[in-house]
């Protein structure tokens, strides 16, 4: 086994810290959305942040990707995100796929994907990868984004994020409101993305989905982490089973 291969852990990680969050506080005016959050994600991992609606998952995602001011420390690849614009983080490989998708509604699928590679080259190669991952997008490539179904828009949002060649992908609620058949497509897509070596922070309300994909899970409630551990451990946690898995 090569030294490179030895460095890679059981989950495909190399141990290098991609994201380091410590003592993070975020507020909206007088309302505190996150308090004292600590989080570390290493290369190749899928770390999921689960929790109910309003727990602060999207706030955490927006803070990590440079869209929200904060107190505490958030470092991407060893440098604070506080002194960088979200656009600069994109160039450095941190790409955020938001809950609201934020697609370019009056543009077609092809144009949306090409804009995903705005700061990159090799558009054709990356587009082929995305179309291979989500063949439905290729079938719809001439269609305006705002005329697509919710599931197709979600595929497009993930596809557009992948066009930016991410090292670290922040996925915020990728399964929200999707039909089971589309959920399966998204699920397969996330597996393929991880296999390609991308580190992922997965913010999810769908705990079953998170348990299936994540290497490590944090439960966020009212802006604080209240449980954490590997999925096999949390699956047997009474509180999580009763509160999030229907007993």
């Amino acid at each position: 086994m090569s030294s490179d291969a030895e460095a890679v852990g059981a989950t495909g990680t190399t141990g290098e810290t991609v994201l380091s969050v410590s003592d993070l506080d975020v507020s909206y005016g007088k309302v505190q959305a996150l308090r004292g959050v600590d989080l570390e994600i290493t290369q190749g991992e899928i770390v999921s942040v689960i929790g109910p609606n309003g727990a602060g998952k999207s706030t955490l995602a927006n803070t990590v990707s440079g869209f929200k001011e904060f107190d505490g420390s958030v470092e991407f690849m060893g440098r604070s995100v506080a002194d960088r614009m979200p656009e600069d983080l994109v160039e450095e490989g941190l790409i955020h796929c938001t809950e609201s998708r934020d697609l370019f509604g009056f543009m077609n699928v092809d144009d949306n994907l090409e804009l995903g590679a705005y700061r990159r080259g090799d558009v054709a190669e990356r587009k082929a990868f995305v179309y291979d991952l989500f063949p439905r997008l290729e079938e719809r490539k001439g269609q305006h984004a705002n005329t697509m179904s919710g599931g197709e828009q979600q595929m497009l949002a993930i596809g557009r994020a992948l066009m930016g060649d991410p090292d670290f992908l922040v996925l915020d609620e990728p399964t929200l409101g999707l039909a089971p058949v589309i959920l399966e497509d998204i699920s397969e897509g996330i597996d393929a993305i991880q296999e390609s070596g991308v580190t992922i922070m997965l913010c999810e309300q769908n705990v079953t989905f998170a348990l299936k994909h994540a290497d490590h899970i944090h439960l966020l409630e009212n802006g604080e982490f209240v449980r954490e551990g590997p999925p096999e451990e949390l699956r047997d946690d009474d509180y999580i089973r009763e509160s999030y898995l229907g007993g």
Partner: protein
Amino acid sequence: MVDILQFVILSTIRSGLYALIAIGFTLIFGVGGVLNLAHGASIILGAYAAYYASAAGLGVAGSMLAALVVPAVFGSLLYLFVIRRFEHEPIMVMILTLVTSVAVEQLVIELAGTQAKRVPQFLSGNMTIGGTSVQYNLIAVFALSWAIIIGLFLFINYTKPGKGILATSMSAKGASLVGIKSDRINLATWAIAGALAGIAGMALGSQLGATYHMGRNPLVLSFSIVVIGGIGSIRGSVVGAYLIGFLEVGVIQFVSSDLTGIAPLVVLILVLLVKPEGLFGRELAE
């Protein structure tokens, strides 16, 4: 028959210029979500830049260059040093651009006085079309307006920076998520809008002379045109400009010149009542 032909020719020519005036206004609203009430100031600066360039012996080409560059620089500086700090406060931007507009008018009065200044024509001479005498200058203004509109359309829809402008107009956050720097896009938009207003100012000045208050009517006109066409839509601005242009000339020619100012307002109210989002909605370009 001659009356109809004259109506069509004059309306077509006037509408092209109106479209040129309105596009810059809609571009800034579409991308930044703010109303630039200093748009008329860029028109004034374009006309006076052309006048001073011509007086300095730079010729028509030099005057055109000055009419493009001076307002483009003005728009860029206005964005960088004033608007950028308040870009998420549309009311503040309206107030600041209105104040800037008044300041530019006062500066022009101070530097050039209140008398109209002669702005060079693009072309001199006349030609007759179907019994109607038309100045070459008006034909040049029409051709230039359309060349610029088509150029802008191609730039926005088929170049990378143009698509960046288009993307930002559709979703500012989406643009940030793919790495488009909204600062640069806004700066480019203010510069382009300034240049378009500036060359429109030279075109207006070449017909009526440059005056310190020449930007007021085009600003009101721009507002009507973009509301009718759909705020943020280039295609809507062009259609709105032709609607207003034909209506204005038609009212002057067939009804009464006293009603010129009222006709666009009647259409504006009708559109707001029937289709408040304008004829082409919110999209920047199609």
